[in-house]
């Protein structure tokens, strides 16, 4: 029985990684409708930030915690720059945006290859994240890895911070206003261009945070972003485009389904099951878990 409990937790921690990646997309893709193919490279930028910081700061714990704000700023700045240079000129042309950001994605990957070298690099995890927390001891123990708990905590904190920002701050209010009715917002004196850039900054910054979390579970390499970005798009589509709550539910549901199926069958079968479940679900609810009745946020 504890096997299913521990697999559920594994699923939740997979979901937490998915959620962190999807959160940024829920802003740029969900709210602004921009399909940013370079989002994965902002994740990569966040991961390489940890690697860079571990050079001068030998303590793995300090560099990891310091990397959280630094990666947010680095990835956020890259996102804002991309928005300012290219995307803002292409808002009415989603097809062009897709191709242009795909090109940017390839360029950033090659840049990473030139700067950091083609081979993957790895970072060391802090001591306090190695090992496991024992919930149930004895014959059939239930234990949770600290690194997974950390990622889960980070995801929860990021969701909470994003919800608060959208609901309680002037910036969040302006962002919602622009999404709901751009012309009216502009007529009310909101600098919509600036709000777009800030939204993009936040969304890309969250990708940077996801990159920091990913260094705890996998390698850091030029193509790490492209490998996981598809899953994040799935989460957004299942959750309902533009719905934060939907993304949370979808990420955890997909994670748990994958983990439980994988335990009793194989990776491929679990993957197929998840994809079939998504297709079936979208037949039933094409708009995703949370229907977009209005254009309100969160």
């Amino acid at each position, binding site marked *: 029985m504890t*096997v299913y409990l521990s*697999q559920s937790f594994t699923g939740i921690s*997979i979901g937490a990684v998915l959620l962190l990646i999807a959160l940024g997309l829920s802003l740029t893709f969900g709210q602004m409708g921009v399909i940013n193919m370079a989002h994965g490279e902002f994740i990569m930028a966040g991961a390489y930030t940890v690697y860079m910081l571990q050079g001068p700061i030998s303590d793995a714990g300090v560099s990891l915690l310091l990397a959280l704000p630094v990666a947010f700023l680095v990835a956020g700045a890259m996102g804002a720059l991309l928005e300012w240079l290219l995307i803002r000129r292409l808002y009415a042309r989603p*097809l062009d945006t897709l191709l242009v950001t795909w090109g940017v994605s390839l360029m950033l990957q090659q840049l990473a290859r030139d700067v950091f070298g083609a081979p993957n690099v*790895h970072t060391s995890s802090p001591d306090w994240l190695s090992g496991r927390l024992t919930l149930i001891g004895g014959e059939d123990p239930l234990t949770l890895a600290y690194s997974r708990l950390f990622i889960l905590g980070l995801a929860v904190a990021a969701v909470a911070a994003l919800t608060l920002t959208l609901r309680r701050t002037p910036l969040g209010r302006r962002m919602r206003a622009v999404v709901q009715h751009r012309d009216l917002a502009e007529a009310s004196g909101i600098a919509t261009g600036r709000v777009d850039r800030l939204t993009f900054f936040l969304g890309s910054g969250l990708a940077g945070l996801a990159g920091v979390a990913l260094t705890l*579970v996998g390698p850091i390499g030029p193509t790490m972003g492209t490998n996981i970005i598809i899953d994040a798009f799935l989460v957004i589509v299942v959750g309902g485009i533009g719905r934060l709550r939907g993304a949370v539910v979808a990420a955890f549901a997909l994670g748990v389904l994958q983990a439980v199926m994988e335990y009793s069958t194989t990776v491929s079968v679990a*993957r197929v099951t998840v994809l079939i479940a998504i297709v079936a679900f979208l037949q039933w609810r094409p708009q995703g878990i949370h229907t977009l009745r209005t254009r309100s946020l969160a």
Partner: protein
Amino acid sequence: MPRIRGQRHRLFAAAVTALTVMSLAACGARTGEEPASGSQAAEVDTSGDTIKVGLLNSLSGTMAISEVTVRDALLLAIEEINADGGVLGRQIEPISEDGASDWPTFAEKSEKLIQQDGVAAVFGCWTSASRKAVLPVFEQNGSLLFYPVQYEGLEQSPNIFYTGATTNQQIIPALDYLREEEDVESLYLVGSDYVFPRTANRIITAYAEEHGIEIVGEDYAPLGSTEFATIATKVEDSGADAVFNTLNGDSNVSFFREYAATGLTAETMPVLSVSIAEEEVAGIGAEYLAGQLTAWNYYQTTEGAANESFVQAFQDRYGEDRPTSDPMEAAYTSVYLWAAMVEEAGSFEVEDVRAAADGITFDAPEGTVTVDGDTQHLFKTSRIGRIGADGAITEVWSSGEPIRPDPYLETYPWAEGLS
């Protein structure tokens, strides 16, 4: 709502466009191919003062990490032979082509090297997929490929010399070691989902049936997969004596991290890997691999004067921090073997070189290797190594003498029906 719909339609249109562009690009690559010229001996260009050879490695794309190191080793061997007077009095002129981690590109470039440049031989390829892609080109043009990487066996082309290990020089000795030295009675198989791990695991399963080893689990992860929490849990729950790991590339990082997170260690459940060499250890992190086992024919630490001078020469040429690994050694050796075959034959022509191949030996960094003319594989010594906390791999067991290559496992009764 209509806005959202419109976006979905446009997204779909974008996807269709992208697919169309890709398939057009693929067609473009095909139209360059000449019609098959039939099986004949390649025209080796012997007009100049030099003799040209082709180096065909992925210098870009996902395989570049590994294949660039092979190219470096090939160039080193060519420079050394040239400094020593060349082959049949001619300097070797390497022509390097980029296979770009793309199998049709490999076929196209090999055709270019053979037909336009008139190279005497081509050195390179890494993945079995790229080898399978160029094989018909070499057979139709009657040219020669030297392939330097361990592979899944069950192949024997007259136009390829295989200088890496076949299965009876790597996987089977590794199983013998686990059974005899580590008293392993149950195994868990973890691999990437493509031809090499699947074929290797079929061989392992047949071996296990014969020798009374229980296979308690078998899992494949997609190439590049980084989510291994569940597989690690299954491995832990299985209570196997050891894990046989045929994962490739990045997946190893995540697998070994999750494996360590479950509390398993090299003492409680050792992992024997066949795709982790010195180069990969650095990428995964030695602390996650300390104490684990690998199976190859060569390690940077292999003892012998030939290896000392190889490592010295390589690091003098490319930098002190560059490790040497098994495929690099096999590539380096392949150039010397070709040169020795040419000297023996007194000719650069492919048929003469092949006829002279049997019994050619070279004092390679891994020890003396001998060409088996029948299979065009090498007699190679099998070695099991243990990865140290510093990332170096040290030998813990060796077959003692070179093993006769048996790509179709014909001398193993239990392997009947595998090929």
